[in-house]
């Protein structure tokens, strides 16, 4: 078992205007899975991803990550877990501007204490895996949307994480680029990577092998 959420609840602004984003959610994800979490806007799917990816802590309940209870860890410890074990792909790419694709991909390695030469070698490798060897010194504004997202995927892969979370990865892409991105994720999954995609579109969710539906903070299927 790679990841387990046990009775996880998340309440935002508990003291002023409480919003319960997640209501006692239970979820299990195994190694090698390709999971889609599908729900409309406001369903809590992003909150679920943030907690599962150790970007946020539950208000109550437990998160077991690779058999360790990480629910009560401080930000520093969570950051270290994210660095080594989690890769994120965002809808808005979130690449550093005026920074080359190569340097963007190297970023997580900076916080993992590699030598510069090691970082460069690994980064070039993953950029090749997503088919961007010709673009490694380009800046984000010199790349198309699909290429930027591919850089983001390479960055997510670069620390060899145990799980990759993609939050609406095709949201800012045209249909064709979107399909290309999902095909890359499919390929990565076939190679053994665990992938979780959060989306509201069923034709994107269909790429996954298991679809979890969520609505109003609770899982419904």
């Amino acid at each position, binding site marked *: 078992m790679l990841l387990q959420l046990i009775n996880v609840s998340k309440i935002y602004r508990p003291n002023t205007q409480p919003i319960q984003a997640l209501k006692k959610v239970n979820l299990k994800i195994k190694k090698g899975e390709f999971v889609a979490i599908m729900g409309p806007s406001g369903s809590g799917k992003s909150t679920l991803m943030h907690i599962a990816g150790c970007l946020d802590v539950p208000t109550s309940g437990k998160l077991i990550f690779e058999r360790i209870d990480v629910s009560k860890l401080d930000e520093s410890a969570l950051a270290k877990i994210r*660095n080594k074990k989690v890769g*994120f792909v965002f809808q808005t790419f979130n690449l550093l501007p005026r920074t080359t694709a190569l340097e963007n991909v190297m*970023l997580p390695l900076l*916080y993992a*204490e590699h030598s510069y030469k090691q970082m460069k070698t690994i980064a070039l490798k993953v950029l090749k895996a997503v088919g961007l060897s010709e673009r490694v010194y380009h800046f984000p504004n010199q790349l198309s949307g699909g290429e930027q997202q591919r850089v983001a995927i390479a960055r997510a892969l670069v620390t060899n994480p145990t799980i990759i979370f993609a939050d609406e990865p095709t949201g800012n892409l045209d249909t064709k680029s979107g399909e290309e991105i999902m095909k890359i994720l499919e390929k990565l999954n076939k190679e053994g990577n665990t992938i979780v995609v959060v989306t509201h579109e069923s034709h994107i969710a269909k790429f996954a092998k298991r679809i979890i539906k969520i609505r109003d903070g609770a899982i419904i299927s």
Partner: protein
Amino acid sequence: MDLPETIKVALEALRINKTRSFLTMLGIIIGVTSVILLISIGTGLKTFITEQLEGLGADSLFVMPGEIHFEPGGGGGGGIPGAGVAASKFTFDHISDLKREAKTIKAVMAYTENNGTMRYKGKSHITQVAGVGPNYQEVRDQKVVLGSFFTTSQYNSAKKVAILGKTVADDLFGEEEPVGKKITISDQRYAVLGILEEKGGFGGFDMDDQVFIPATTAMRQFDMEYIMSLWVQSQSSETIPQTKEEIEKILLKTLDDDEFSVLDTKSILGVISSVLTTLTAALSGIAAISLIVGGIGIMNIMLVSVTERTREIGLRKAVGATPQNILIQFLIEAVVLSFFGGLIGILLGMAGAFLIGRFFTTTVTPWSIALAFGVSSLVGVIFGVAPAYKASKLNPIDALRYE
């Protein structure tokens, strides 16, 4: 992430926004440049005056009117020391009394200073006219390089003879040979006996912009009743304390205690030294205020920078940067800005000191450079902490959503 890496990351972030980085550094640069310049001018002035006084000899004493301690000499001719402002009561009798009765005195000389207009063949030059004794060259350790000084008999007869400083000679005579010619000093005709060797100057002071006539002649020329000050040469620097005592004893016979002061070069040096040190420190303190302003500038820009880079900070955290990583990164950015600002300021300050060194003596001291480095880096740390802390506390999820 280790320190060299963090510094590289910080440098990279600053390099991406070169213009902003430079403008932020400007406050520090200006502050440090001013401090270096002011300290170097102040130190140079101190060095110059010290050398001049030492040139007078550790065996010299000055009897000045009134109870004042040393006051920097007034006017453009730069007499050292200048005649006091208090009313003088010294007469030639005092000089003979001292000569006759003091055992440790080697020489006594009258010294007066007045403004005068020198004219030669239509050219005129206004400067200090010093009235001195025939033993001037020994007392002051400054010899004539052309011609000769006036003799004791010329002094005793109050003859109208003059010795010119180099600047005056050049201005009035140009290429012409001055010795033997006649000039007018304040509309009286004087014969030029010689030219004195050069002593240099500092800023507005030119030691060579002076004319020397016998003190006896000066008393009449400028209608003075009393001699402005007395220069005394002790037998050696060791006998200074005894000489001081003897002078006081002898003069107290005819003068009141508060009508004269005896100063030796060491005490004058001490006073000048402390005055200049205080002055330099005060001016530098004012300049240092601009360092604080520069620091505030850094803090402002770092705060703006943090806000602008909110999404970037969120991303860094998402991929594994701990709050400490972020804190140190932004803190180093601030320190790098202030350190480089300090470096540029030091280089500019040294260059400026070198340029000004043509007019004023300047001395760039190593400790002022170390101080500038230290303070500017410290400014970076102090004013960089708040923004860096703010950055480190950002919530990654909110930060990533920031517009």
